């Protein structure tokens, strides 16, 4: 209950900042919609199926991607690195009897849920306006497993961004590594094209990396493109990567916090 109440307090703060949420959600929608325009043109000139995907499936993928990006991808790395580590904001968390991880986890989760809900609203309006049909999974078990994969996807992206932020304990310039990570995430999480469209070898590599399990597979799950066995495999990979990231997180925190000087305080 205590965690839930803390989550609610964070959510209250997010609602107070609703204009910021709307702006960020619109920004998150922008890229997938541009890619969608590109694919509409490609389909027009190349026929009805590309890589086994029909135009409506691709459309539905990018529309879901625009919302899933808001729901699932944590944007915590910059504030961890710059506000908390470089500028010393970490001080206020470290001296409180509550885990830094969980405080940020619930704080960020409240942003994701609120922005995701705004995204669903916008998606609904777009869908109605352009009479777009988005296919969803329908069986209760499938919905439940998809929901679990969404939770794990958020946890995975949160841990990844925290680890990225923690690099600031050692690096004096964090932006370089952040930009590189963003590019990798764009490609291997399926933000630019569905991973199915990548060359075979790159696609196989991307399925082994954690990024596909942050956005790409959860979207396939909600579209109903994954069989139960495949979905179980996705959940397994998500848990595996979460376990790995949790170990890295713990290691980096234990070592990094000893280097923390609270500069700016």
């Amino acid at each position, binding site marked *: 209950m*205590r965690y839930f*109440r*803390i989550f609610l*307090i964070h959510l*209250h*703060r997010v609602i*107070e*900042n609703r204009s910021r949420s709307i702006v960020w959600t619109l920004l998150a929608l922008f890229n997938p919609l541009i890619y969608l325009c590109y694919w509409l043109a490609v389909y027009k000139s190349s026929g009805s199926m590309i890589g086994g995907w029909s135009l409506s499936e691709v459309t539905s993928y990018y529309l879901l991607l625009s919302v899933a990006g808001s729901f699932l991808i944590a944007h915590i790395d910059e504030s961890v690195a710059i506000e908390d580590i470089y500028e*010393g*904001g970490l*001080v*206020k968390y*470290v*001296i*409180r*009897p*509550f885990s830094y991880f969980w*405080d940020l986890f619930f704080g960020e989760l409240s942003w994701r849920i609120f922005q995701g809900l705004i995204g669903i609203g916008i998606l609904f309006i777009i869908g109605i306006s352009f009479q777009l049909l988005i296919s969803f999974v329908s069986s209760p078990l499938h919905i439940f497993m998809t929901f679990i994969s969404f939770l794990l996807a958020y946890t995975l992206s949160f841990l990844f961004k925290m680890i990225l932020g923690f690099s600031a304990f050692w690096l*004096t310039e964090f932006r370089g590594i952040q930009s590189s990570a963003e590019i990798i995430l764009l490609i291997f999480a399926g933000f630019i094209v569905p991973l199915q469209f990548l060359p075979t070898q790159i696609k196989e590599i991307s399925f082994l990396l954690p990024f596909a399990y942050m956005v790409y597979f959860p979207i396939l799950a909600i579209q109903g493109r994954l069989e139960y066995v495949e979905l179980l495999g996705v959940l397994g990979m998500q848990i595996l990567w979460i376990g790995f990231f949790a170990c890295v997180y713990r290691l980096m925190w234990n070592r990094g*916090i*000893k280097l*923390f*000087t*609270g500069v*700016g*305080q």
Partner: protein
Amino acid sequence: MPIISVDHLSKHYQVHKKEPGFIGSLKSLVARKYETVKAVDDISFSIEEGEVIGFIGPNGAGKTTTLKCLSGLLYPTKGKLSVMDFTPFDRKHPFLRQISLVMGQKNQLWWDLPAMDTFLLNKEIYQIPTKRFSDVVDDLSVRLSVQDILHVPVRKLSLGQRMKMELIAALLHSPKVLFLDEPTIGLDVVMQKTIREFLKEYNEAYNATIILTSHYMGDVEALCKRVVVINFGHILYDGLLSDLVKEHAPYKIIKVIFSEVVEEKKLNEYGETKSYVFPEWEVRVKHKDANDAASSILKHLPVEDITIENPQIEDVIAGFFVANKKEVK
């Protein structure tokens, strides 16, 4: 038994050193040079429960570093620390529930929301029962006269009002040990006085142990009987503030307003003249001679008004630092 004990504490940092300019950057690229900065070097002291201690020293002396080590923020390079029988850097929750750190230059309040929202978050974090929370908020907000602005967004508050809210946020869980790093920085004199009085009341009401760093000697003078003077990471003095003043300023200042002009030569027999611009005269006399000198002045000179004052504490401390600078280096 002391509530805080510090035994040979050292905190050293590695700082990257680079020569200026492009060549310096190239050299730094090939072989980086590091220098060890001894922010705190082998200091020891202990503090009893309920004491209010002033940590004083110039910028970079090691005051804040000591405070950060004591509150568990920094991992000491060497030495042993104990605060309420806890090792601070372990940051065990029972320890964190009993301390608070207030930094005058940073805040924990959410900028865009009323302070009450941060208080509610702290209520959950410190697991304060609802009744106790309401009582403490009521008590502290009345003491600091902020009942009317608890629901105003923090960004709309003045610096002084924000500091009051910071103090409430830091004291909601009634900490036994309070670390204050320049709590009155940037505040006007009236607000400084209010904060000092509040801290004094808090110390008396809750028997809280307070460690305070401040560049405003008024804070130290009003709150702390005992001071620890620190510079270059070393403790230069640990004892009563009154003893420090007596020892390092064994004189008083007599200020006189004359009713008519007096020849400067005549004034020298009473003490060391600090300044004389008619009608005001300031003279330094030894502690023990102050009363005799004052009555002699009254008897022999055309005095309209006379006062005997202790020297400014800032002057005493500044003199103390200058005297000890070479020795420490």
